[in-house]
């Protein structure tokens, strides 16, 4: 890593801003949700994921969602891009007058659940050692490891089902504090990491 640049522009190139906005709009246009969007990012070709950069990933995920949502045909973006490359660009028509339509607002991810939290602050818990087949927000590096509940966070929709249109299954979320030596062994730097984990990811630990 290098020291951060203080003057880095939000969008270094104009297409990056447009790709960002179009991708967020594509989530809804394709009938997806935030979790399904993250799952789309995870399913990109791994070499592309690393080589195409953040905004390239978003663009590719937008295409994947729009094709899977049957808004666009496979290859349609590529075909149009070739047309644009091979034909002289004509000036776009003047935009219609008037106020821009509002940015669409979503329902968000937080929910209220009736059940009391299964775990309490200070309790020792273990991240389950599981390997969900699809999308999950249980990071691999904590699976099977024990930590202490530091904060009970507001309940939220469960990404593992929501990303696959299997329902929201809202549940409590816990910030769990793991010691570095628990995760990385005795030779690790001394520090702690908190990970925000859904209730279904956790079990009690002696």
């Amino acid at each position: 890593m290098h020291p951060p640049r203080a003057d880095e522009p939000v969008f270094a190139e104009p297409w990056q801003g447009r790709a960002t906005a179009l991708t967020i709009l594509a989530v809804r246009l394709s009938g997806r949700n935030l979790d399904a969007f993250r799952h789309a990012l995870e399913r990109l070709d791994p070499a592309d994921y690393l080589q195409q950069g953040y905004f390239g990933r978003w663009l590719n995920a937008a295409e994947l969602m729009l094709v899977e949502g049957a808004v666009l045909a496979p290859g349609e973006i590529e075909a149009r891009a070739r047309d644009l490359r091979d034909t002289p660009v004509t000036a776009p028509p003047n935009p219609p007058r008037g106020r821009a339509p509002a940015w669409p607002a979503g329902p968000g991810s937080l929910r209220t659940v009736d059940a009391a939290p299964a775990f309490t602050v200070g309790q020792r818990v273990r991240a389950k050692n599981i390997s969900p087949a699809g999308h999950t927000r249980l990071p691999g590096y904590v699976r099977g490891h024990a930590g202490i509940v530091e904060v009970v966070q507001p309940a939220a929709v469960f990404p593992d089902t929501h990303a696959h249109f299997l329902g929201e299954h809202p549940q409590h979320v816990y910030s769990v504090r793991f010691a570095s030596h628990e995760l990385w062994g005795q030779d690790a730097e001394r520090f702690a990491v908190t990970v925000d984990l859904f209730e279904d990811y956790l079990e009690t630990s002696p």
Partner: protein
Amino acid sequence: MTTDGADRGTPAALRTAALEQLLTERGLVDPRVVDAFIADYETNVGPRNGAKVIARAWTDPDYRARLLTDGTAAINELGFGGPQGEHIVVVENTPAIHNVVVCTLCSCYPWPVLGLPPSWYKDPAYRARMVKEPRAVLAEMGLELGDDVQITVRDSTSEVRWLVLPERPAGTEHLTEQELVPLITRDTMVGVAKVEAP
């Protein structure tokens, strides 16, 4: 593993233009909405929002207490909220305790107070290494912490968003809230730098 068969040799700018044209032709996207989004995140929604929150906390003990108890509500008091800021938790850095924020699974970041994430925050190396060797990563980024400082890394794996309340540096006691705002940089509110006195 999924590939969509597209020729990745086509420049992203061209593919973006193609996408916008296709969605606009179908009446699904209004380019003015795209323009407004870009203008918003280039000018309105950025780390200056977070800096106003921190400067208020440094100068108003009651606000500071509210911010640390219910970050989302205290931040809303200053008019900031919205996407990627549904539930913001503020953690305080002190000479003994240092918090630093990462998202190992993607690049989750508190947009309403910091804007869109900078390139280093999205770097796969930052995402992978910050939870494994934070002291080394911070040193590479220019922040050397003493061995006695306890580091807590905050991995943003749910919809909780973390904001660091950095230490107010010595020598700024005479500055007003408004004078403090420009000192508070994005990097200090993620926890990869400390605020420096002018």
